[in-house]
Each structure stands twice: as structure tokens, then as C-alpha cells.
């Protein structure tokens, strides 16, 4: 697997972070686009996770299995966490939360890639 999909999730996450930041700056609560973006991001991350598991089934092994699975589990939990918190906080600060979590997600993607070159690190 090449790193195209992982890169796409990074780009999407950063775009979403920028969008949410603008919303927060304009005193807007999380809008439909943010929640939709989080959903698309989550689907992308789930596909990354599925591809990783398929590679695992094919006999490949990550260099650090513990760290790899730690990052993988954390990663797929981030967009839902952002969505839940955004729904709990229907103010500009909800958008700020979406922004913060969308800034953390690319970091976790990169760290995940570093633990296993199968994902195109």
C-alpha cells in the first residue's frame, strides 16, 4: 500500500482544522460541514486501519506492534471524540475543539506511518 490514502487523511484533517478555526474566529458553532468532514475523515481512517489489518493478515509485521496498535486505536477514536464534544458544546468553542483534534490527527497519522512502513511512511 502506498501512502496516498494516509496523505489524503492528513490533508483533509488539516483543511477541516482550518475551516473549524475560521468558524471559531467568526464565533460560529460547529456546522454541518465540520461534522460531515469528521465523518469522511473517520471513513478514511477506518480504511487505513482496514488496509493495515489486511497487510497484517498477509504476514507483514510492524516494527513496534505495541506502538502501532496504540496509534491505530487512538487514531480511529479521534474524529468521533471531536464530533461528540462538538455536539456537547454548540458554541465557537465547539469549533475550537474540532480544530484542536483535527490538528492532532495528522500527527498521529505520521507517527503511525513511522511505526510501520507498510503505510507509506
Amino acid at each position, binding site marked *: 500500500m502506498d501512502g496516498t490514502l494516509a496523505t489524503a487523511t492528513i490533508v483533509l484533517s488539516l483543511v477541516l482544522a482550518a475551516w473549524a478555526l475560521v468558524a471559531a474566529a467568526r464565533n460560529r458553532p460547529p456546522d454541518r460541514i465540520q461534522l460531515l468532514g469528521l465523518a469522511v475523515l473517520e471513513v478514511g481512517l477506518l480504511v487505513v486501519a482496514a488496509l493495515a489489518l489486511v497487510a497484517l493478515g498477509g504476514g507483514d509485521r510492524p516494527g513496534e506492534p*505495541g*506502538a502501532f496498535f*496504540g496509534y491505530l486505536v*487512538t487514531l480511529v*477514536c479521534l474524529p468521533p*471524540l*471531536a464530533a461528540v*464534544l462538538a455536539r*456537547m*458544546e454548540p*458554541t465557537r*468553542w*465547539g469549533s*475550537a*475543539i474540532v480544530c*484542536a*483534534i483535527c490538528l*492532532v490527527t495528522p500527527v498521529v497519522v505520521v507517527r503511525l506511518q513511522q511505526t510501520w512502513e507498510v503505510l507509506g511512511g
Partner: protein
Amino acid sequence: MVETDAPHRATNRGPGRLLIAVYLLFAIAATSRAGLQIATRFDEAPVAYLLSALAAVIYIVAAAGLARAGHGGRRVALVCCSVEFVGVIGVGILSLTDKALFPDETVWSQFGSGYGYIPLVLPALGLFWLWRTRNDPA
């Protein structure tokens, strides 16, 4: 950054909720890191790994305290943020002066440089927020 229109500031609303979210992220990061390090290579750097575990516990308790708010929650959060602040500065100095004590990095090493210095800023923001919401009626 903490300007809101509401005259009454609840500890666990608005900016407080953002703070809780960041604390949650650090709780997850520190817990997984410490858990993994202690499980796989505890002998290499016991002090560093135990400190990571302590940091993880503090982040979790601080997040819970902020989320719970009220008198008890705020007191818990105050203690956690204070310990965290002292911890990140203490460990930051120690990790620079006594490298033998920390052969491997912790969340707080070099003032949290591995985490974009957020571990240094976070307790300050936490304490500031607790001070801003000191009249929280909840």
C-alpha cells in the same frame, strides 16, 4: 482568547470544554505511552517511565476534575494543574541537567518539547481558567 459574552462562566463550558478536550488528548497520549513503555522495556529507564505514568494519571484526573466542575472538581483540577506545572518545570530542568536520570524521554522532558511545549502551556492555561471561573456558581 477566553473572551466570551456570558457573564457567568462555568468551569466545564465554553473554553473550559476545549481545555478538557486537550487534557483528554494528553491523557490518552501519556497513558498509552507509559503503558507501552512499562510493559515492554521498564528496566531501561524506570524513572522516566514511572514519571510518564504519573503524568498520565494527573492528566486523567485533571480532565475529570474540570469536567465535573463544582467545588470538589475545581479543587481536584487545581491540585492537578499545580502538580503538573511544578512537574513539567522540575522534570524539564532535571532532564537538561541530569541526563543519566532520564535515558529515555518522558512527556515532560525538556519542558514537553516532544509535544510542542503544550505540556508546559496546558497547566498554565488550566490555572488561568480556574482563576477566571472562580465565581462559578456551580
